[in-house]
């Protein structure tokens, strides 16, 4: 049984423009699934739909999101917020805007424990200190009392990771958690996320556009193009032989770790045309109601 099961999810803008096209995707307990695709493919939108934070302009118009077997759409808004808060968490992309600049770090970590799990403040603070140590922060006491701007980007991302794991969620969605950091810090943060995920046995939906990262952290992956799932497979099979032409081109466009300076082929025009045609045909079928 998967912990997160997205079935036939459709998200549209208010004007009817589709952002997600009948997306299905599963993450088993303890599994790491990578979600890849170029910028604008709708990767973040999937995460937002699951966490119930879709932008005002977008609307969920079809499909189901099951979290631990429970259909989120059937719940009242309050119950949904409660369930999501207790079972899932987000590691955001940009550590600069993900912490409130006018609040100290400590309460921003303990909020979740107090709000959702009903802990007492002192207990929550003790737990926050432990978590900060777990993400290898040197002087947790001092960091708890600091304002975000007093800390480096890497440090802030560590805090956000600690905060995501605070309530022991069974699912974490990491939305390009290393993109905003410089290369040396990227590696440390990636290692940390992996380490925390394995220790806590958390299911992880790892959003990235970097296939190099995928092989290091994930077991399975979903390739997205224009809000449509193009390929869904294991990481091993994907790197051995991607089945879709777009996936092949995407792989060819990724620098190899063995040869980072090697020649890269951008995704060819013909492949883009083919996949666009496929998406258009898919839309046509969906409209006619003949989609299998």
């Amino acid at each position, binding site marked *: 049984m998967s912990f997160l099961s997205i079935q036939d999810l459709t998200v549209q803008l208010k004007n009817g423009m589709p952002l997600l096209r009948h997306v299905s995707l599963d993450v088993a307990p303890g599994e790491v699934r990578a979600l890849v695709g170029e910028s604008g493919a709708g990767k973040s939108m999937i995460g937002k739909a699951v966490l119930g934070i879709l932008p005002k302009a977008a609307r969920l118009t079809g499909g189901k999101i099951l979290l631990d077997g429970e259909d989120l759409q059937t719940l009242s808004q309050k119950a949904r917020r409660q369930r999501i808060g207790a079972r899932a*968490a987000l590691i955001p992309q940009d550590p600069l*805007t993900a912490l409130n600049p006018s609040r100290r770090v400590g309460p921003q970590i303990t909020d979740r424990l107090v709000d959702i799990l009903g802990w007492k403040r002192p207990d929550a603070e003790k737990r926050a200190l432990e978590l900060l140590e777990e993400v290898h922060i040197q002087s947790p006491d001092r960091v708890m009392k600091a304002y975000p701007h007093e800390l480096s980007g890497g440090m802030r991302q560590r805090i956000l990771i600690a905060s995501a794991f605070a309530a022991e969620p069974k699912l974490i969605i990491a939305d390009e958690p290393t993109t905003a950091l410089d290369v040396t810090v990227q590696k440390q943060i990636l290692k940390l996320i992996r380490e925390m995920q394995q220790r806590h046995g958390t299911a992880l939906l790892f959003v990235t556009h970097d296939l190099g990262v995928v092989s290091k952290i994930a077991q399975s992956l979903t390739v997205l193009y224009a809000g449509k799932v193009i390929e869904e497979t294991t990481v091993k099979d994907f790197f051995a032989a991607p089945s879709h032409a777009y996936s092949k081109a995407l792989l060819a466009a990724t620098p190899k770790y063995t040869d980072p300076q090697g020649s890269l082929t951008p995704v060819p025009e013909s492949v883009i045309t083919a996949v666009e045609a496929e998406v258009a045909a898919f839309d046509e079928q969906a409209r006619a109601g003949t989609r299998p």
Partner: protein
Amino acid sequence: MRDARGNIRRLPGIRLWLSGGWLTFLVLAAIFAPLISPHDPLAQDLFAGRLPPFFEQGADPAYLLGTDSLGRDVLSRMLYGARLALIVALVAGTLTCLIGASLGLIAGYYRGWVDLVISRFIDIWMAFPPVLFAILLIAVLGTGLMSVIIAIVVIDWTRFARVVRAEAMGQGAMDYVASAQVAGRTRFGTALTEILPNVLPTIVALLTLEMGIAVIVEAILSFVNLSISTDQPTWGGMIAEGRTSIYQAWWVLVFPLFALFLTVLSFSQLGEGLKDHFDPVLR
């Protein structure tokens, strides 16, 4: 002093001290006006009319800043005038801020139809020319302290609403607001802990600015004889009276004008200083 990153902290600026000093002095003067005023501000003495201030030829040491054409003591009248100026500043400023900032926060954070209604309302409201609007209001409400305060609130709440709405909207798009919602915060709770503290520096700056504006508006209304009843000394009223005898007794006009200028300047400087003080990144 050094902060966590080893940067030298900025000392609270000199302008914060100067403006704060003048306003503190003014508050004390207003509170203790009956005790420290050398004369009754309304008492006329036609034999002591247009006495110059102490540093001029022919001054009477009993009238430090001189007298007006009716022989009333300028210093005493200014001290009592400070009372009215400050009451208007505090009450009108605070009320304007509460009403405007709340509406702006609601519109900017909740968006949707609430925002639509409030924003349209602001647009329509701002189409009225403010001075005309004020005079019209006083004409309807009648003169008096309450009318002046109401006029200021009614005209100026849009200043807060517009700015706070824009800032709240920017805050609402931040990742930490989304994170707070994922972490189970209610929308109202999010507005209080995530949005408000970040908009607060701006609100504080606007509030002090508004207090300065309230002092000016009160003075303007007094000047055109539409403010508090004429038997109470106000700075605006003194300036209006002094204008007619500017060549014979410049001090009747200049001293209250100077007090008015210093006060308005101090309010705006205080606002700028406090804004930095409240901003965690600049602090």
